[in-house]
């Protein structure tokens, strides 16, 4: 799609072409065939009026005309900005182009040769920021994203919100004309641009000088990376990017301070350890805890030390424990936890209330407790826990483990091991029962979700795979059929429960994983894919290896159910729930859509017997470094 701002840029180029070069004859010939436009093309004078010329780059041209010495003795300010950003070690910058950050854009592609960061062309700002979201969780560090003032920011705001709710660091630069004069740039600037998204960014600043840009960039990065992590944003005036600075007056590039996360108070952690070790039926509930190998290992160590169930939950959780581990689960319906320790759980109000009423204890360890503010109700309801430990759970785990070790005697060890054996037996039985249930409808058409996931799991079981899509409605089947035995096997979900995350975010995560030699796979809903189909082009254009499996169930099925429920409650007829909720008539052919974007695809696959071969062919492409898509016409969930 060509946006208004791009249209004007195109118009500017055409106008320049008219002035600078080209033969007049072909243009006259064209004019003879094509009727003259009702609106005349913009002239140089129009462009000056629109964009407030002469701009800094025009001043640069003037300098060039005055003599080469002047140019070599000065440099674009955006080159300096790029040097600052290089300190932050960005591998990629996701963008949808916009004239308000063209100074930086040009510096990235010519001053640093489009390397570190390499620009990723996205077809929508929401896709660009969501791509950064998925990448940050997989890579453990932010990706740079750049968008245009107001319009680009508004397009990207949804993805920014999702990253906020998911506590994921993003680094966003918004270009904006500080002194707009034309009809286009006036609505693309604001007195206080940050206010548009301030409710869901951790930090924002408008960088009015280069020194401030440098300091704010370092500060923003530190804030983004300090738990609870989150997106940050710098508004960088177009005029500042395009200024020329004398090399002698180049500000110093600051150094990034080494970061340490907030850790729980040692006395409180000691109390948590005492309660856990003395509990008869403790339960660990990690949520957004371990995105590193160390955190993953620490969760396993704590679970095995205590020999208690570890229940990572579903929605809103990152995977923090191996799904086929004997202790993975909630201990079964008969297991009544007397001490529950939740880590980075956003809302444990119901859990805490119920436990308190029954005389059982609940503890929360979370960086959320040192959190400043939120206008969004993503912090949940107030939880009446017995002990609230303010600190990053992953960073607190090593201290907790040492305290637990110190308290476990030989006698206690035997008791804990007996408990662990009982828990493991319960979990083994539950897993077997669940998997046995998956054979129902195994040969069904439309294809059953277990079949869709199972055939995929079978083909990648010997690969070093990474599932980069969110949980959706298939996560439980995935966990039962796929062994999530590494910290990177699952990348978590959207954070804010908004559709449209999976398709672009999976791509960002795939980028991070493919550099580490892993096989990225994503199971995305057809509803999600339709929010950001242009991501398929980004995947094809940048040759990002990723297998998209489209769970094509042709409706927003959760909504079918809730509309049905509303109709039933109101007693006004129950036969119309499909209106406004289904995506059929006509059915969408996602395989064809992918081909249109230049991606290898298979499907639509309707017969379950065709699935294995389709996956095999698509995976062959992905293993060679290409993206591929398999469109699976499947049961709703």
């Amino acid at each position, binding site marked *: 799609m060509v946006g208004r701002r791009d249209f004007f840029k195109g118009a500017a180029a055409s106008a320049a072409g008219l002035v600078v070069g080209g033969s007049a004859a072909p243009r006259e010939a064209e004019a003879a065939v094509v009727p003259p436009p009702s609106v005349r093309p913009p002239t140089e004078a129009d462009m000056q009026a629109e964009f407030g010329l002469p701009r800094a780059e025009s001043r640069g041209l003037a300098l060039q005309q005055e003599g080469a010495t002047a140019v070599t003795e000065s440099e674009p300010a955006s080159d300096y900005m790029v040097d600052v950003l290089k300190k932050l070690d960005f591998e990629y910058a996701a963008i949808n182009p916009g004239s308000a950050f063209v100074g930086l854009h040009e510096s990235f592609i010519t001053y640093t040769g489009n390397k570190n960061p390499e620009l990723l062309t996205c077809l929508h700002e929401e896709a660009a920021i969501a791509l950064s979201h998925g990448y940050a969780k997989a890579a453990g560090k932010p990706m740079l994203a750049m968008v245009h003032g107001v319009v680009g920011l508004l397009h990207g705001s949804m993805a920014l919100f999702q990253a906020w709710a998911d506590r994921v660091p993003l680094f966003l630069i918004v270009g904006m004309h500080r002194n707009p004069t034309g009809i286009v740039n006036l609505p693309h600037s604001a007195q206080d641009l940050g206010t548009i998204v301030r409710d869901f960014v951790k930090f924002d600043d408008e960088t009015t000088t280069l020194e401030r840009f440098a300091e704010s960039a370092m500060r923003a990065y530190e804030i983004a990376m300090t738990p609870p992590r989150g997106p940050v944003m710098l508004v960088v005036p177009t005029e500042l990017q395009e200024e020329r600075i004398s090399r002698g007056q180049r500000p110093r590039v600051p150094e990034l301070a080494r970061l340490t996360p907030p850790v729980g108070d040692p006395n409180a952690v000691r109390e948590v350890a005492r309660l856990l070790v003395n509990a008869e039926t403790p339960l660990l509930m990690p949520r957004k805890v371990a995105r590193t190998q160390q955190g993953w290992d620490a969760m396993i160590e704590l679970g095995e030390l205590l020999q208690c169930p570890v229940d990572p939950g579903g929605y809103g959780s990152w995977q923090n424990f191996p799904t086929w581990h004997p202790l993975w689960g909630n201990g079964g319906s008969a297991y009544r936890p007397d001490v529950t320790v939740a880590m980075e759980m956003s809302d444990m109000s119901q859990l805490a209330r119920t436990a308190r009423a029954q005389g059982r204890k609940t503890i929360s360890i979370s960086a959320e407790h040192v959190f400043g503010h939120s206008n969004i109700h993503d912090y949940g309801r107030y939880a009446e826990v017995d002990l609230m430990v303010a600190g990053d759970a992953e960073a607190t785990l090593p201290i907790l483990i040492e305290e637990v070790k110190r308290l476990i005697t030989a006698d206690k060890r035997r008791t804990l091991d007996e408990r662990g054996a009982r828990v493991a037996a319960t979990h083994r039985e539950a897993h077997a029962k669940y998997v046995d249930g998956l054979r129902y409808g*195994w040969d069904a058409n439309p294809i059953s979700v277990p079949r869709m996931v199972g055939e995929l799991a079978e083909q990648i079981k010997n690969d070093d795979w990474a599932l980069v899509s969110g949980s959706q409605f298939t996560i439980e089947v995935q966990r039962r059929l796929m062994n999530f035995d590494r910290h990177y096997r699952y990348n978590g979900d959207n954070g804010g429960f908004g559709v449209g995350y999976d398709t672009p975010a999976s791509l960002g995560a795939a980028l991070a994983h493919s550099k580490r030699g892993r096989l990225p796979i994503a199971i995305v809903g057809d509803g999600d894919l339709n929010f950001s189909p242009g991501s398929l082009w980004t995947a094809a254009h940048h040759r990002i290896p990723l297998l998209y499996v489209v769970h094509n169930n042709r409706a927003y099925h959760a909504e079918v159910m809730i509309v049905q429920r509303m109709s039933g409650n109101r007693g006004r007829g129950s036969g119309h729930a499909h209106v406004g909720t289904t995506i059929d008539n006509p059915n969408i052919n996602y395989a064809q859509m992918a081909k249109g974007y230049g991606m290898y695809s298979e499907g639509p696959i309707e017969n379950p017997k065709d699935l294995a071969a389709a996956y095999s062919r698509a995976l062959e492409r992905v293993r060679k470094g290409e993206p591929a898509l398999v469109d699976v016409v499947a*049961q*709703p*969930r």
Partner: protein
Amino acid sequence: MRPLSIWLVTVVVCFATIDLAAQAQAARPAGDASRGKQLFEKTYRCYACHGYDGQTGSPRLVPMQMTEQAFVAFLRKPPREAMPRFADVPEQDLTAVYAYIKSIPVAAPPADSVPILRDVLQRRGQSGQTRTR
């Protein structure tokens, strides 16, 4: 065996036979199964949660264990909030849906005949603790 005992046994067997026949009669759905399929898939969209064949969703409907009467009562006033109410739906629609569900054969191959599931169970069984302590 005494005559009285023989008589008693005969009576019990007769009653049992009559009862079984009555149960069989009661178990045979009164509704129109083919119409029920239309209602299940196109009108009331039951498949959205329970799967097109009633056995791939949650909860699984096949094999249907409820009696027709219990099924209709359940739909009129579901005990679970997640389940929509069908209080205003004509009874013949509900009995037709019941008839359709009853007509669906269980399509579940034995677990050990599905290599993927068998392999998962085997590999999960071999997965143990890392014994880091």
